[in-house]
């Protein structure tokens, strides 16, 4: 009996001792929330707590991902590598999602969990503590309060993984696009900013007000979001409801429509909406054919998730708002974006499909073909 106990004890002790031997592979890392965590030297597998971080990891290196936060839409996965679309759906903490089964995550043994935050409040930190204490996997908090933080987020990815070159490339690439969009935006006087309405929802009467993270790009690219609404009144979840009369009063010059709009999304969704309510035809943007569907796949260009995918929006939106101020070839730039970000070489037909939603405005189509 005694022998058995001793054998068992020594087995337990040696098992306990093992991780300490591996400690040389670990190192200290200070994340963007200022917490010091202990992570493996070269992080090879990552889980993100929300689609924001998952999008970041996918664009950085899809090999890192152990799974998605939600079930991918077939339209979107068409623009991805099949190999990664088959990754499991693991849940996440975002929107109204039910969360994650932490045991599944622990069993999948990622080297690191990332939590991409748009705020600097303590919530992310607290949540990360809970996750790491329950799974034993370190959690790094990334901050992305504005699109301008994107380059630094890639820099952090470089520090955590072995792929320094990739980090450098993405950091510089995104920084250039951000700078250019900012320059164009700054050259437009406040009084001449174009008035933009961002339509979402089943009837186009949900929007993202000026201060919402979901509409940040409109402001950043020099548009004037017509929905100037006090921060307190905004639903953090997005999709703030407004009335038809209010949209008429705002009378936007440009309407950006979410590809998720209406029942079928896209152009068809939009047509259903304007056909069901003739008041839309009284709005300047509709009268002048300046209604644009925000291209979507694999991640929407300006929002949802409000993550690194918005770099495409920084190429596209200035073109929609102020074509005369943009001296770049948008077709070439979008192709480059898909190649750099998603490793996807867009064919001309695919590019056309992505932006075909914008046939509504002949002007944009011309610009894209330029």
């Amino acid at each position, binding site marked *: 009996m005694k022998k058995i106990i001793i054998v068992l004890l020594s087995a337990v002790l040696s098992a306990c001792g093992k991780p300490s031997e591996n400690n040389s592979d670990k190192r200290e890392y200070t994340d963007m929330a200022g917490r010091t965590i202990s992570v493996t030297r070269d992080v090879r597998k990552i889980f993100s707590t929300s689609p924001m971080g998952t999008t970041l990891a996918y664009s950085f290196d899809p090999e890192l991902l152990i799974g998605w936060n939600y*079930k991918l839409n077939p339209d979107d996965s068409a623009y991805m590598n099949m190999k990664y679309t088959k990754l499991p759906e693991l849940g996440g903490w975002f*929107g109204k999602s039910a969360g994650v089964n932490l045991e599944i995550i622990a069993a999948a043994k990622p080297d690191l969990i990332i939590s991409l935050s748009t705020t600097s409040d303590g919530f992310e930190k607290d949540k990360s503590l809970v996750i790491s204490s329950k799974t034993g996997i370190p959690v790094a908090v990334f901050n992305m309060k504005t699109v301008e933080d994107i380059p630094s987020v890639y820099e952090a990815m470089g520090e955590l993984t072995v792929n320094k070159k990739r980090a450098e490339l993405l950091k510089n690439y995104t920084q250039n696009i951000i700078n250019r969009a900012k320059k164009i935006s700054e050259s437009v006087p406040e009084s001449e900013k174009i008035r933009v309405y961002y339509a979402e929802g089943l009837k186009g*009467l949900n929007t993202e007000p000026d201060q919402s993270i979901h509409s940040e790009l409109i402001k950043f690219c020099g548009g004037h979001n017509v929905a100037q609404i006090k921060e307190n009144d905004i639903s953090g979840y997005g999709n703030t409801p407004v009335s038809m*009369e209010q949209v*008429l009063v705002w009378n936007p010059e440009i309407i950006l429509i979410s590809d998720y709009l209406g*029942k079928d999304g896209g152009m068809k969704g939009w047509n259903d909406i304007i056909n069901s309510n003739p*008041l839309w035809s*009284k709005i300047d943007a509709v009268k002048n054919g300046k209604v644009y569907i925000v291209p979507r796949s694999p991640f929407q260009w300006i929002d949802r998730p409000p993550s690194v995918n918005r770099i495409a929006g920084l190429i596209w939106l200035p073109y929609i708002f102020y074509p005369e101020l943009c001296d770049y070839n948008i077709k070439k730039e979008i192709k480059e974006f898909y190649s750099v970000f998603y490793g996807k070489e867009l064919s001309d037909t695919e590019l056309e499909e992505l932006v075909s939603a914008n046939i509504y405005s002949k002007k944009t189509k011309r610009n894209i073909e330029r």
Partner: protein
Amino acid sequence: MKLFVWICVLILLSSTALLVGKYPVNFISLISGNGASPEDINTFKMIIINSRLPRILSALLIGGCLSAAGAVYQGIFRNPMVSPDMLGASSGSAFGAALAILFRFSIKGVEALSFASGIAAVAITWTISSTVSKARSSLVLILSGILVSTVFTSLLSLVKFTADPYSKLPDITFWLLGNLSAVSLSDTVFVSGCALLGFIPLFLIRWKINVLSLSEDEARALGMNTRAYRLIIIACATLMTSAAVSVCGLIGWVGLVVPHIVRMIFGPDYKTLVTASIVIGGIYLLTVDTLARYVLSIEIPLGILTAIIGAPFFIYLMTKSERGWS
């Protein structure tokens, strides 16, 4: 006489609501045809006809339907805590709508499936309770209602769980919060049709509800076919509730609170109570909805406002009223 006064209040409020809105409609030029370009006058007309009128009429009808349904339910179940969603109409409609949104039905399709599943839920409740209890006591009916509601609420959660987080889920969530901002004229026509179909039978048998609100035995002793009348009443109330929910989403409180307010004003006699519920319910929802569309530049979901305004008002009435609550 009292009812007449309240009908005048309703008409007055509706006309005021027609004048109020975010868009500056120039009524003088709209009527005289001068002082604005024909284009502007056309816009004014469209705003009144396509935006404000359907909204005001729908608010009146939906408020009326929900509170009348609540009033008769409270009577036949002899329970002041009963509301129109008692037998599963609301949770059935909510599930139907969510399912339709998930499968990308058109807006009309969403309303149709929502309406149909509201009615189906109550039919299931009725079938279960008739199978379980030959005596058809209202307790069994209420219990079956709670069960059916729970199942449909869980199914709704299941739909929300599987919905796409970027598109379908926000749509479902907002539909559930209750909102009249997007009602169209055809919605109004549909609700008024159902409201009439539900209201006329209730109006014709309104005095029988008094008898039904006594005990079951007393009602039967008075020679009444309680089962038949109860079925008619439940069918009418379900028709009205499902129509209301299918068009505007879930709006709580109206069906629970307004009947009590009506009883405080008009007394417990169902001869006037049914009609008065329609009038006061209409006034209540119209007032709330007008606030919802006028106060902020965003729309405040109705489900939230009806409760925030309704609860304190109800407490105030409760402290003022000397009527018994037993």
